[in-house]
């Protein structure tokens, strides 16, 4: 099977797309919400790659971030809470030619959908998976999420979160078939863009945790990191995500070979710095859409197979 759709195969497509061509409804996120930055970065990637809207699908779950498909003029599937990944699995398995993007929040991905999250990584189907992590439930107005920092007060835990937060990067690095695990932040737009761009070119399941500011319900969580670039460490490598135009703002650069899984796991552990970059990449794992690909048979082969099957019941 070629990677052209039935509609456009053999038809000369001379359209070019600009960022505005991918925009749809006016985003209704709060002013200052990090989701706006992610949407812009995604639109830049779509424009750079000149992805045809009808060949691109955004699948989401439930949460502020999951309003994403409404704001893009591509195919969109606003799914159920926690179920974005199995829905996307169904889309990709039946239409491997589509560019599949998944957008979830921390509640969607690491809470109600945690089971699917692990297994989707193991399937390793080619898709870009964005987890927009504001470390709080925003759409329902401030309840504790699995990634909420210890001691952070919310409406369900007014005395502060009782548990240390789940570490999504560590979880992903512990799973079988991990193939692309990266972390970026909404307030470093150039890095955000390059990360999504690298994920798009990754031949497999590309998981990105986007640290995302919520100015209303978790306003101070990332404040120090935003104001003090010294608290951020960029993972760099010839094979990693390298952003050159950060204006010298981010000076802490750490060389990290993204094929080094043990060191990636060590780097993912909590430290006094936020680490942005590509933790791990491995394109050697088989992709599920290829593992489960149905072999193409000629009509003669089909008849032969059918006859073999029918012969089993011959009397």
């Amino acid at each position, binding site marked *: 099977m070629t990677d052209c759709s039935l509609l456009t195969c053999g038809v000369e497509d001379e359209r070019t797309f600009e960022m505005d061509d991918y925009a749809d409804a006016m985003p209704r996120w709060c002013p200052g919400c990090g989701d706006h930055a992610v949407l812009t970065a995604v639109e830049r990637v779509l424009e750079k790659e000149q992805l045809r809207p009808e060949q691109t699908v955004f699948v989401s779950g439930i949460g502020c971030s999951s309003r994403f498909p409404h704001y893009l003029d591509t195919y969109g599937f*606003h799914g*159920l*809470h*926690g179920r974005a990944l199995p829905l996307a699995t169904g889309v990709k398995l039946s239409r491997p030619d589509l560019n599949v993007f998944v957008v979830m929040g921390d509640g969607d991905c690491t*809470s*109600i959908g*945690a089971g699917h999250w692990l297994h989707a990584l193991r399937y390793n189907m080619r898709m870009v998976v964005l987890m927009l992590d504001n470390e709080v*439930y925003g*759409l*329902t*107005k401030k*309840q*504790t999420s*699995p990634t909420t920092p210890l001691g952070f007060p919310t*409406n*369900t*835990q*007014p*005395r502060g979160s009782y548990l240390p937060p789940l570490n999504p990067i560590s979880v992903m690095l512990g799973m079988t078939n991990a193939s692309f695990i990266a972390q970026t932040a909404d307030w470093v737009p150039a890095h955000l863009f390059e990360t999504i761009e690298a994920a798009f070119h990754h031949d497999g399941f590309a998981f990105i945790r986007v640290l995302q500011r919520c100015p209303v319900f978790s306003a101070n969580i990332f404040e120090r990191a935003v104001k003090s670039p010294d608290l951020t460490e960029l993972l760099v490598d010839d094979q990693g995500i390298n952003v050159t135009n950060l204006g010298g703002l981010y000076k802490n650069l750490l060389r990290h070979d993204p094929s080094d899984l043990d060191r990636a796991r060590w780097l993912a552990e909590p430290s006094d710095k936020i680490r942005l970059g590509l933790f791990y990449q491995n394109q050697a794992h088989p992709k599920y859409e290829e593992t489960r690909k149905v072999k193409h048979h000629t009509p003669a082969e089909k008849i032969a197979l059918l006859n073999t099957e029918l012969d089993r019941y011959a009397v």
Partner: protein
Amino acid sequence: MNKVIVGNHAVSWGVKLARTEVISAYPITPQTQIVEELSDMCARGALNARFIKVESEHSAMAACIGASAAGVRTFTATSSQGLALMHELLHWAGLGRHPIVMANVNRAMGPGWNIWTDQNDSLSQRDTGWIQLYCETNQEVLDTTIQAFKLAEAVNIPVMIILDAFFLSHTSEPVDIPDQVTVDRFLAQRETSIKLDVADPHAFNALVRPDAYMEMRKDQQDWMRRAKTVYAEIETEWKALFGREYGKIEPYRTDDAELILVTSGTVTSTTRHVVDQMRERGTRVGLVKIKMFRPFPTDDIRRALSGAIKVAVLDRNISPGRSGIFAEEIRSALYNIPMDDRPKIFGYIVGLGGRDVTPAVIEDIVEQTQIATQPTREDLWVGVKP
């Protein structure tokens, strides 16, 4: 003590006054305020309960079942998709005979996504073995929440209290909040002989073979039936203490009514107003509000409706491929009464996905029912755009 509170907080107050011991929930609009208020009460020490924050509604109900099996009073709240996600565990609570109380804020099912009220979420849990009580006002919500614990624990059947999204959940009304001492007289601490207890060990939920399963089901059915009588007794006791009662159903101006409207939830208040106005103009119209949907109060319904010529049922729900669900239950309840007593049942589908049911909509239904000689084969959808 009188307070002006939203319906969601009326639930929270009821749960607090019932001295609930374990609460487990996951946030979902429009329910979230119920458990936020309870979290706050727990954090302030106003309520001595454990609040378990879980990762989904499925987990919330599982945690409630575990806590209830340990013998403590247990509560959760949810809505719509959250209730649907609980479905498997609802059967477990029902057939496991755990007296859990849950508030469900009626919200339409997706897709398309909709956060406004209709009854399809709770009604599609009809056969899970839960008692279902639909409320009309915030006062009724609070009173019913406390009553629900007593009812659940008397018959070992879980109880779902149901209130309309936004029309009750987020609307403020004056509510008389009963004092704790009187509530304690009404509702004692939960006592159960069947519980997880290291001093008296039992195994729960073992394999039940065909030679015993039917008996288990029959026992559930017998106690469901008994719940109707028990609820009436509980209401009598409640009235003696607090002066209020609601009934499994509430007939309103039905005595000489030729046409009776049947409603549930907040549509009832609007209909009550329309009935009063039409009565002033001399129209012989009445109202029956259905509060208890499971167990279905068949005898009460028969008594209330058998004198009328026509009955118009307003269903804020639809069983796709069949009919409005209350209308269908009422048709079935009246089928075996003598032909001469049997009113004609007109079904109307109204207010799905939170669409407003105004007095004008109800007046229109009354007029259409008066003009018609026979019900149409299918329920009529009111106000649907072509």
